[in-house]
């Protein structure tokens, strides 16, 4: 009987000597939203869809609250596109997603306080103007102008990011800063600027580290 107990003890020891128990840091941590103004536990991931929506909303409200832009006697003509919006971050992104959202939201919210120039569609406009003037089509109903609209202001900006990794815990952190500046196209001054910060951290399951 003692022998049987001994064998059972060996078996139990073998089972105990089995796989190391999963430590807390082995487990995955879901991506969490952090307060961008405070330092996160380690770091994070990049710009997501909800950021684009929130960012555009914040910028639109801020631009409409800026007297140098929104309270001009004659509504200023503005270009908002990705031409001068650079991406220096380590995230692949289609910048048009940000600038298109901003232009559409601002156009709808401004209710005529801004006039938007579709410079990214200048070719399309030029073709139609040529067709009207050559008689290929009629002149339409709103009349002809001497030239396409010039712009008073144009949006410029930059996306920059900074990454960190903690190899012990597998945490990866990314800080992304998106800056926006409205440039006076005659004087070269910046009449409005703002920035949007994102700080996120996540850790993949240990099986992937």
């Amino acid at each position, binding site marked *: *009987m003692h*022998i*049987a107990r001994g*064998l*059972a003890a*060996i*078996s139990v*020891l*073998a*089972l105990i*000597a*089995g*796989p*190391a128990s*999963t430590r807390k840091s*082995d487990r*995955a*941590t*879901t*991506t969490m939203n952090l307060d961008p103004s405070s330092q996160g536990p380690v770091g994070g*991931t990049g710009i997501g869809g909800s950021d684009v929506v929130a960012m555009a909303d914040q910028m639109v409200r801020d631009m409409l609250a800026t007297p140098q832009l929104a309270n001009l006697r004659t509504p200023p003509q503005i270009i908002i596109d990705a031409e001068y919006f*650079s*991406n*220096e*971050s*380590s*995230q*692949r*992104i289609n*910048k048009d997603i940000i600038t298109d959202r901003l232009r559409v939201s601002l156009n709808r919210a401004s209710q005529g306080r801004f006039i938007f120039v579709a410079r990214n569609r200048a070719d399309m406009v030029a073709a139609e103007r040529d067709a009207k003037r050559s008689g290929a089509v009629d002149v339409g109903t709103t009349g002809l102008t001497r030239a396409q609209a010039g712009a008073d202001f144009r949006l410029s900006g930059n996306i920059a990011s900074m*990454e960190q*990794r903690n*190899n012990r815990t*597998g945490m990866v952190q990314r800080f992304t800063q998106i800056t926006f500046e409205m440039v006076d196209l005659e004087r070269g001054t910046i009449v409005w600027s703002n920035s949007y910060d994102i700080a996120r951290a*996540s*850790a*993949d*399951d*240990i*099986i*992937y*580290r």
Partner: protein
Amino acid sequence: MRKLALQAAAAALALSSIAPATLADTPNQAATKAEAKRLRELRRQYGEGPYPDEIEAYVAQRPEPLRPAYKLLFTQGENVAVLNLERIAIASIQLGYYKDAEFALDQALARIEAVYAKDAQAEKARALFHKESNKDYKGEPYERAMAYYYRGLLYLRAGDYENARASFETAEFQDTVAEDETYQSDFAVMNYMSGWASHCLGQEGKAKEAFEAAAKGNAKLPAPAADANTLFVAELGLAPLKVKGGAQKELLTFGAPQGADEDGVNFAVSGEIAGSTKMVRGKKGTQKVTVPGKPYSGAFHPILASSVYEQATTRGGRPVQGILNGKAQFKSATDTASNVSTAVGSGLLQAAIQNGNSGLGNAGLAGMGLGLAMKFMSKAAKADADVRAWDNLPGSIYVATGHVPTSTFRTNAVFLYKDSQLTLAPQPIVQASAGKCSVVWTRSRSATGIDAAAPGIDPGVLRARAFAQAAVAKDKVFRATLINDGVPAAIVAPAALAR
């Protein structure tokens, strides 16, 4: 009585609705029933799919040379989706199907970037009685870096230098996981390519930083000249081999591939510098003068920027190794305990037979039974390291930059071994001048000359997924996404590919 009659009528109606197609069925009803029967039959034969007609319909939409790879992608599901997509991507670049390559890499990178928290398959891969390869493949850091590298190359080809730079920077970031700090951020070619993207953007400050970082990883990498406008990239050799090591196959080790000796490459470029006109002021006033075009030829000698094999082997210990070591320990310990129990039990049984001692006999039987149980548990534990590998990667990457005074030129590549020319099967040369800079890319070994299925895939793991509800659901969504969001069909081979 009336109630009984109503019940009988209702029963008759219910029966008629489940009866087989009869002459009374409308054509629509008959077709619905036939389809339901067909699906029942398919489900009986193939479970939750994919079904042969689905596979055929999906694959038929893909370019002919890539169909076998797309078939594997569709049928093997999420477990090896990243690996299959990566293999498709390089083959697509080589064959000139750039849309397919972009689609495949975007899909692969989305999965690599996804955080697998509380994922059933990841949990399973950690479990004692399941193999590591139960996890959805994301690859080792060098493989992840290479996925970003190829996406960066495609962005360079398209003249999108910002996203190219982002891709190379993220590729380099994958290398920060190395256990030994000496090998962290030493994937020099990624910094170099990032610098090149900045150079093409005209951001020389950022470019200089990246070239300096590249030089820290590889001091022989020179920064491009200020007027450099063309990047030459040559990939030489074969992918690192993943091999299972350790007594219980719990270690991931790497082997150097054999049969690819090339250690150098030369590019020869020829083209025509376009003619132009200019205004010249002379005695007779300002006149328009035509400057005739002239032939151009140049030679470029890329140098070794990074060895993919070195990147694979200098990572150091993987965090998951702790789990695999635990599994291996369990296997060994239970196996030893089983041997001891069986031997002791057998001895006791023999003694019991000789002495006629029933107590000893019972103990012996118990010992042998315990030994058998332990042996079963030892066999059931799965410590195997995951050796699924991206097999159409190169062994090393060579780069050169220079000024080519025309964007329309022809390129020829010659591969070398100890400075002597090698006779290798010619591979396509990808060449593009979409933006301010041109890029030329080629490789010494074909990306399509590989086995149909990726190495290291465990068919048993794939078969077992058919019985895992979560995996079945995931694969169904995966196939539906492929069908709905797949790259637009491009069945005709692209003509613009330089060969």
